[in-house]
Structure formats: C-alpha cells, structure tokens
C-alpha cells in the first residue's frame, strides 16, 4: 500500500525509547517502531502497556512527572528531542496530529467548534480570520459532518460523541500533517459509530497519504485498517510484522493469547488456541527479570527467568521477542491445541 520507495526516511521512527519517572523503574523501554507515509500501523497491547505514553512522547506531551530518558524519536528523519518548545510546537499540527480516546472531554467546552478549528489553522498558517473560517468549514465537510455551517457556531456539548470525534479529527488534520496518531479513537463510542469513525480515518489516510499510527486493543480494528501491527507488552515491543503474518501466524505467546482472548476466537481456523492469559500487566516496578512475560507464559523455561530475549527479525520483517517462539506450522506445543 505504501507509495514510497525505501529511500525516504519513515515519517515516524522510534528507536529504543525509554520513558522514566524520576528514579523509579522506566515505564517504557526498548520501544521501537516505524511508520511510513501512506501506511497504517496498529499498535496493540493490554491496557497499561505504555501505548499512550509512547504516543504522547512523540507529540512531546508527556505529563510533567514523566520524561524520555533514552532512545530516539525521529520525525521525517529529524530527531525531535532537544528541539526548542517553539520548534516542537510547529511540528505538532504541521507534521503530526493526534486524536484522543475521549471525544466527550477532548474539546474546550466554552469555545465554539469553529473557533477551536480556526485557532489551529491560524496558529500555523498566516491567514485571515475569514480564510481560517473557510478552512474550518472545508474540514468539517472533509470529516463528513452534516450541516457544517451551523455546526461551526455550536459548542461541543451540543454534539454527539461521534460528531465530536470527527471535530477532533478535523483539527488534527487541519494543517496537513504527514503523521496521524489515533489513541483508541473509537473505544469510547457506540459500535455503529465506531465503524463510521474507522471508515473515516481509513479514507482520510488514503486520500491524504498519511502515516497513521492506530493505537487500539481491538485486533479486529487492526485487521480492518492496518498494514502492519506492533504488539506491545509491559513497555516494549514483543512482536511485529505484516498484519496477516502476525495475526494468522502469531509467534509470541502473548500475541497468541490476545488473539484467542477475542470474543470471536481465532482468525484462522486451525491456529493454536491458548486459554485466556492469566493475570494482568505488571506495574513497571513489578516487572520480572529476564523475559517480562514469563510470569504469565505457559511455555516459560529456566532461561526465560535469567536472560531477556532480543527482538529477532525473521522472514518478511516478522519480528518476535521470545526464546521459544510459537510456530504452528512446525512445532506448536501440544498443550496449545484445545
């Protein structure tokens, strides 16, 4: 789906990102991922894995008590850490935009929709009030909000959650960014509205040739919209690759667990099933030594307790961080099959 040749640097390139909280254990570490222009990457993992923090650190919007303490974040090849606040602000909006999980609280309740969009346009483009207003109108049309002229004068509380999420999307793409980060954009919405928002995001991504980082814990969403998938567990990547490759042939036991925990079961008939993964994501300070997943892993061996596995890239860029990756074609452990 990518229109780019490999020569252009990825629009987003995170390498060995480490997010710390004072002297406490880092919350995110060894986090790497890439998003190319025209590509949708699904970032999945249970709640508390560090997906949102990864996204916020790209935007430079981490809460005051958190800090990027290691690794690199490149936007179109340019390292953004150490940039002045002023430069970073220009990048937010012009190079990257973000959509948040809670559309109901994401907009300023005392400003009209039109004012909030126009403000964004005027912050980045030297245009008149009228031109900004025109652009706002155009954007509302682009995100398919009915009666856009009237909506411009309305306040957020006069709109439904789905409509508000469309407004947030309109703001995020107002200045034609190359990268769009959507942090669980449909989690707070009704199922029917979810589908519409996903469709909108997918079509915008195609039309504007965006790099889209879609954060979700819903694997069906990933299958629907993403080209590649990055599976995150307890602060780092455990598996990544093309969507079909990873979902049809998961190699990390955690990915396998996520897939079989879906209410609709496995994607591919015959894929090994795993009983729901026991327990929950450990807090950063409670992560075990060695492999962070070993406490919950049915296949953990001695080496898993002592040595942290590396992210090993195999065929077709399918990478996995596991000493004993699952392979259903050859050696699916017997106890997997139910």
């Amino acid at each position, binding site marked *: 789906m990518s229109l780019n040749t490999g020569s252009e640097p990825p629009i987003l390139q995170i390498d060995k990102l480490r997010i710390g909280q004072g002297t406490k254990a880092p919350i995110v570490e060894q986090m790497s991922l890439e998003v190319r222009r025209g590509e949708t990457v699904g970032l999945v993992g249970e709640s508390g894995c560090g997906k949102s923090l990864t996204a916020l650190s790209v935007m430079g919007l981490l809460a005051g008590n958190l800090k990027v303490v290691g690794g690199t974040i490149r936007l179109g090849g340019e390292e953004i850490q150490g940039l002045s606040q002023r430069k970073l602000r220009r990048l937010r909006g012009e190079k990257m935009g973000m959509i948040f999980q809670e559309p109901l609280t994401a907009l300023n309740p*005392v400003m009209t929709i039109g004012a909030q969009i126009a403000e964004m346009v005027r912050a980045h483009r030297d245009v008149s009030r009228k031109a900004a207003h025109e652009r706002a109108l155009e954007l509302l049309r682009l995100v398919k909000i009915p009666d856009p002229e009237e909506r411009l004068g309305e306040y957020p509380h006069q709109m439904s959650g789905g409509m508000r999420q469309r407004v947030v999307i309109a703001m995020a793409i107002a200045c034609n960014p190359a990268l769009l980060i959507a942090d669980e954009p449909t989690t707070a919405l009704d199922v029917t509205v979810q589908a519409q928002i996903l469709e909108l995001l997918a079509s915008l991504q195609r039309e504007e040739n965006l790099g889209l980082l879609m954060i979700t814990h819903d694997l069906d969403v990933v299958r629907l919209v993403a080209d590649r998938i990055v599976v995150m567990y307890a602060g780092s990547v455990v598996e990544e690759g093309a969507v079909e490759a990873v979902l049809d042939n998961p190699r990390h036991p955690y990915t396998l667990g996520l897939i079989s925990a879906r209410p609709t079961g496995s994607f591919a008939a015959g894929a090994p099933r795993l009983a729901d993964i026991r327990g929950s994501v450990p807090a950063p300070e409670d992560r075990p030594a060695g492999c962070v997943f070993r406490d919950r892993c049915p296949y953990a061996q001695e080496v898993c307790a002592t040595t942290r596995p590396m992210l090993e890239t195999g065929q077709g860029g399918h990478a996995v961080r596991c000493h004993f990756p699952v392979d259903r074609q050859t050696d699916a452990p017997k106890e997997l099959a139910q």
Partner: protein
Amino acid sequence: MTQTSGPITGNGTKKAGPFAALSSPLGRYILRRLVQALLVMVLVMVGSFFLMKLAPGDFVDVLAGTRDLTAEQTAELRARYGLDQPLVIQLVRYMGLLATFDFGYSPINAAPVTDVILARLPVTAILVVASVSLSMVIGTLFGIAAARNAGKPVDLGISIFMLLLYATPSFIVAIMLILVFGLKLGLMPIAGYESVGMGYTGWQHIWDVTRHLTLPVVALCTFYIAIYGRIGRASMLEVMRLDFVRTARAKGISEGRVFYVHALRNALLPLITMAGLQVSSLVGGAVLIETVFGLPGMGRTAYDAVLQRDTNLLLGVIFTSSLAVVTVNFVIDMLYMVLDPRVNLK
C-alpha cells in the same frame, strides 16, 4: 448570546408582540429567575418581620427607658405607629407599603426610612463594588501567577503572602493602615466619608471621597485577595489537567494561549461564584470596617437600628440588602450563562 439554531417553538410560528421573549428558552429562563428572586424577597421580608416581632420590646420601650413617659403617651405612640394592631394586620400593612418602596418612618433619625437609606447606601455601594472588583482582579492575578509558576519559588512566595492576608482579620488590617498611612505618614484621612465643611463639588468631591474610602476598601480587600488567589490557583491547576488542554497543546498553539485562552475562561467560573458570596457578605457585613473608619454605611445603620429597636429602619436595611444580594446573584447567573454555554436553561 446567540441561541441554538433550529426552530425554537414547537409549532414553528414565532409569536410576536411583547411576549415574544417568552417563546425563547433564554427569555423563559430570565423570567423564571426574576420570579424566583421576587419570591426570595417576599420570604426574607416576611421572615425578618416575624423575627423582629419575636424580640421583646419595641422602640417605644427604648424611648420610655430614656425619658419619662406616661402610660397614655406610650399608648398614643404605639397607636400612631400601628404597634397596637394584631401581628397579621401589621404584616399585611407592612408588605403593602414595601411593594411601593415605602418603609415608613424612622423614629431614631426623625426621618423617613427611605431618606435615611438613600443617604447611606452610596457609601456601602462604593465600598462593596470597589472592594469586590479590586480583590477579585488582584486575587485572580496572584492565583494565575502562582498557577503559571506552580512549584517554583514565585508560587511559594505568593502562597506565603496569601496565607498572611488570609490569617489577618480585616479590622487589624484597618488599624494598621490607620496607624501607618493615617497617623504616622499622614497621607490619608482616617475617618469619615468626606471632608467636613470643605464644600467640595464635582471632581474635587470625587477625589475627596476616593481618598477617604481608600483605606477602608483596602482593609476589606486583603482577606478576599487571599481567597481569590487560592481559588484561582487551584482552579487553574485543575483545569490545566483536563483533557481539552492536552488537545489544545496537541494542536501546536502557544503555551500562553493554552493557559490564557483555553484554561483561564474555564477556571473563572468558581471565582465568579465567590464574587457573589463576597457581595452578599459585605453588603451588611462591613459594619466592623464602617465603625473603625467612622463611615455612615448600611452596616452601621443596621447596627444602630438594632440597638435602638428601630424596626422600620432595620427592615428597610434588610430589604435593601436583600435586594442588592438577589440582584447580584441574578447578574452572576447571567454572567455564568455568558461564560459557560453548557449552563442548562431548564
């Protein structure tokens, strides 16, 4: 304020004429608030009338205590002021007079209550308006500065200063101001509302009154500056944590705009509520400061009326104060509506 688009009345045809305003939610809302305000006034007046009557003695007793009055004389006085009538009759008559803003006669001032109040209202009005606006502006600025620099030395410095203002009773502030600016430095007049016998007019008069009221206003402000400062700081910090602030930052607008445009307007709401409370408590509650500075204001008037059992005057003061408080609350509701479009008009 612009209203929601779309048909406002159910049947689509807008009624014209003097009641057109009633067909809009805003018009109905305002009308409802006015009716409520009227009801509050009636309740307050009925309630205070009975309270007044509960207290033993009337002003005739007070008079009788200071000079020799015969039984006939007291009876005649009571008859003249209607004090010999049954309570209910007195109440009905009184409420009827109130409706025409006639509060009767103030025996201790030997003048109609309306005249007494009109003469004293300006002092209190100036005190209240000046100290509310001044303390709100200064306090809010301190609060904003503290929030903007949260956790830094500026914040700590402001916090300590606010604590100091908060902990110092206003009459102590008043006495210190008198000692320093009035007596030691001789910069400011320390008593009264205007210079007696100077016959100032026009700007000279205004300047004279301003000089006389500066110290009392400052004394009334200090405590409230601390209140606004603390509420303002807390409110700003709370708003800055809300989701929409993150969205605003994600748009790449300047941090100043995030703070002063997005957060501030949301953070003002609790401060406006506070202003309403402050007005209510100052209208009658400035008596201490009025006494210290020898100002003929409403607080002093009420105080004198209580001591001398001048029921008419006291009820007049209560009426005027309640009217002021009810009006201010009404204005604040309207302000809320302008500042917060979410306010439910139902």
